[in-house]
C-alpha cells in the first residue's frame, strides 16, 4: 500500500516544463498566441498555470505539470516539445 501511495504521489507530482510551440501553426480562431497557449494548456490540465509566456527566446511557455499531463500536452497539435526544466549553476 505504501508503494502504491508513493507511485500515486509521483504520478500526481507536478514539475516544471518548458513547452515549445509552433507559433506559425496557430489556428486562425485565436487572436493572440497567448490565448492559444492557454487553450492548449487547459486542454490537458484544468488547474495548471503558466509561469512565463515566452515571445523572443522561444515561442512557448513554462508551467507545472504531472508527467501524464506533460505526455498528453506533447501530443496536442502545435506542440513542438515539452521539456523538463533544468537546473543551472554559477561557474
Amino acid at each position: 500500500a505504501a508503494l502504491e501511495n508513493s507511485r500515486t504521489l509521483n504520478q500526481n507530482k507536478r514539475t516544471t516544463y518548458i513547452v515549445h510551440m509552433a507559433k506559425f501553426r496557430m489556428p486562425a480562431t485565436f487572436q493572440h498566441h497567448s490565448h492559444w497557449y492557454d487553450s492548449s494548456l487547459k486542454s490537458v490540465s484544468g488547474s495548471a498555470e503558466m509561469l512565463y509566456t515566452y515571445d523572443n527566446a522561444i515561442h512557448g511557455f513554462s508551467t507545472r505539470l504531472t508527467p501524464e499531463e506533460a505526455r498528453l500536452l506533447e501530443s496536442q497539435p502545435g506542440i513542438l516539445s515539452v521539456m523538463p526544466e533544468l537546473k543551472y549553476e554559477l561557474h
Partner: protein
Amino acid sequence: TTRTPQFLGLYGNADMFPDSASKSDVIIGVLDTGVWPESKSFDDTGLGPVPSNWKGACEAGTNFSSSICNRKLIGARYFSRGYEATLGPIDESKESKSPRDDDGHGTHTASTAGGSIVEGASLFGYANGTARGMAPRARVAVYKVCWIGGCFSSDILAAIDKAIEDNVNVLSMSLGGSISDYYRDSVAIGAFAAMEKGILVSCSAGNAGPSSFSLSNVAPWITTVGAGTLDRDFPAFVSLGNGQNYSGVSLFKGNPLPGKLLPFVYAGNASNATNGNLCMTGTLIPEKVSGKIVLCDRGMSARVLKGAVVKEAGGLGMVLANTQANGEELVADAHLLPATAVGQKSGDAIKKYLLSDANPTVTILFEGTKVGIEPSPVVAAFSSRGPNSITPEILKPDMIAPGVNILAGWSGSVGPTGLAVDTRRVGFNIISGTSMSCPHVSGLAALLKAAHPDWSPAAIKSALMTTAYVQYKGGEKLQDVATGKASTPFDHGAGHVDPVSALNPGLVYDLTIDDYLGFLCALNYTESEIKSVARRNFACDASKKYSLTDFNYPSFAVNIDTTQLASGSTVFKYTRTLTNVGSPGTYKVSISSQSPAAKISVEPAVLSFTQMYEKKTYTATFTVSSMAAGTNSFGRIEWSDEKRAVGSPVAFSWN
C-alpha cells in the same frame, strides 16, 4: 577589475578605442545573482543619457528601489517564478526578492564586464589599483536568475526573453548546466534567439577541468570562455621548523601570527573522522588543534569553510594542501584566520615533515601582492576542457581570458568568503572561476561592438578568436597549470584573448542565420527539434548536402574514426570563407602541424582582398594517417598580410 586591463593591453592603447558616443551606447546584459547598485563600479559620472533604444526597466523589490538605477546601471530585473514554483516562496530574510545581489557573484561579473573606473580599489590592500570593467563606458543591465537554491531554466529563459526585448547588445552568462543537446538546453536555445537579433552571447566554459569532455555551453552560436591566470600573485610562505620554506598564496588580512614557530598538526591526526584530513565541519578535536596551525587537505568542502572549521576548533592558522585533483593550482582566499594554500608537491613535502618530526613547528609569512609573475597567462586547472562532447566537430572552448584571482565589485550583504560567519564587508572581492573570465570577454565584445557596430556576433567572436595568442612573448607555448606542460587547443581554444589585435583583425569568419540552420540540419536534428531552437517554420532541404566540416567556424576539429580509417591515409576536406573587414591586402597562409600523422594543406595559399566585405573561400585538406584511438594532435592555419594575422587552431582526434 584591477590589473587585467593592463594585462590585456587596454592601457596605453586608448586611441585605438576612441571615446565615442557609440561606445557608451553599447549595453551589456548580465544574467546572474543580481547587482549591488551602490557599488562604486556602477557610478554613472560622465555618462550621457540612457540610450534611446533601451526598453528595459529597473524593477523594485526587497531592498531595491526602481529609482536606484542610473546612467551606468540602466536596467535591473529579477526572475523567480520558476525557482519559487519548485522550491517554494523565497525566504526574504535570507535573500532579496528583487534584483539586489545577496551573493556577490553577480556584482563581480557585471562590474568586470562594464564597471566604471574606480580608483583605490583593493581587497584588504591586496590587488590594489584602479579598477574598471573591460568596457567602462558601456551600460549594464542586470537580470537576476540565480538564487540560493540555484538557477532554473524557466527563469533563465524568461530573462533572455526580456533582455532581447530590452535591446541589450551583449549577453554575459557565467552559469551552466549538465551536458545536453542544444534543443534541450535553455541557455543554448535562448542564445540562438539572441544571436539572431545581433546580440553576442558569452558564456563560461565551466570549472570541471582538467578532465577532458568537461565543457558547458558549447553551442557554436555561443562564445565559450575558459580561464587563465594573470601575472599577479599573492604569496604567503610556509616556513617549517626544519628550515624548509614552501610557497603558497593567501588573501588573509587580520591579526598576524606570533612572530615565532608554532606547533603544527595534520588534521587527519586531529580527528576521529575517516575524512578528518579534509577539515569538514565538526570533525576536528579542539584539544588536538587548539593553539596550533593545522594542515588540511583540499576537497569536499569550500576552502574558506575549512579555515572557519579550524578557527572554530581553536586552531591559530591553516595550511591548505592541494591533492592530485588540483595539482599545483593555487587559488587565493580571504580566509578568516591566517592561512595559505599550497600545491600538491609542497603539500606532500610538508606532510612528510609533519608526520616524521616528533614536534613539528611552522609559521606563515604573508607577502602581499606581487605582479610580473611569469609565465602568464597559464590555463587554470579548473578551467573545463574539450573535446566538445555534444558536437566534436566544433572545437571548444573558443578562447581563454583572465579568470584566476580577479578583483571586482562585491555585494555589501556578504563577506568576501561568502560564509555566514564572515561579518566583514568589502567593496571589492577577489575570486576565481570561468565565471570571471566570461565577463572579461563580454566586456571586450562590447568594445568591439562599439568600434564596429555593423559586425555580426559571429564576426566579433571571430575577431576575438583569430587574434588570440598561443605563445608567450619569448615564443614558448602557453602552459597548462594542470600539467606544467604546453596547453592544447582543447584547453585554451584559439588562445588567450588579445583585444587590441581583435579590434583590427583584417579578416573574419562570418556566419549568418542560414549557416546556423544548416548546422542544425547537418546534426540531423528532426524538424521539430530545429523548430524548437530556431522558432520558425523551417525544414532542411532533402536535396541539399549539409556539412559540419564546411560550417564557417574560426577553428577546426578533425575527428578520425579509427575503425573506418583506410590503410595508408585518409583525406578530410574543410572549406572556409574569409570576409575582409579591413583595408585591401594580400594574405598568405602559413601552416603548422604537430605530428607527421596529420598533414595540413590549404588551397589557395594566397588570398587577395581589394574591397571591404569581399569574401574569399579556401579549402583546408587534412591528410591523416593511422594512430591509436584516443590520440590527439594539433596544428594551426594562419593567414597574414605581414601587418595582421588571423589564426585558427586545428585539433585532430583519433577516436
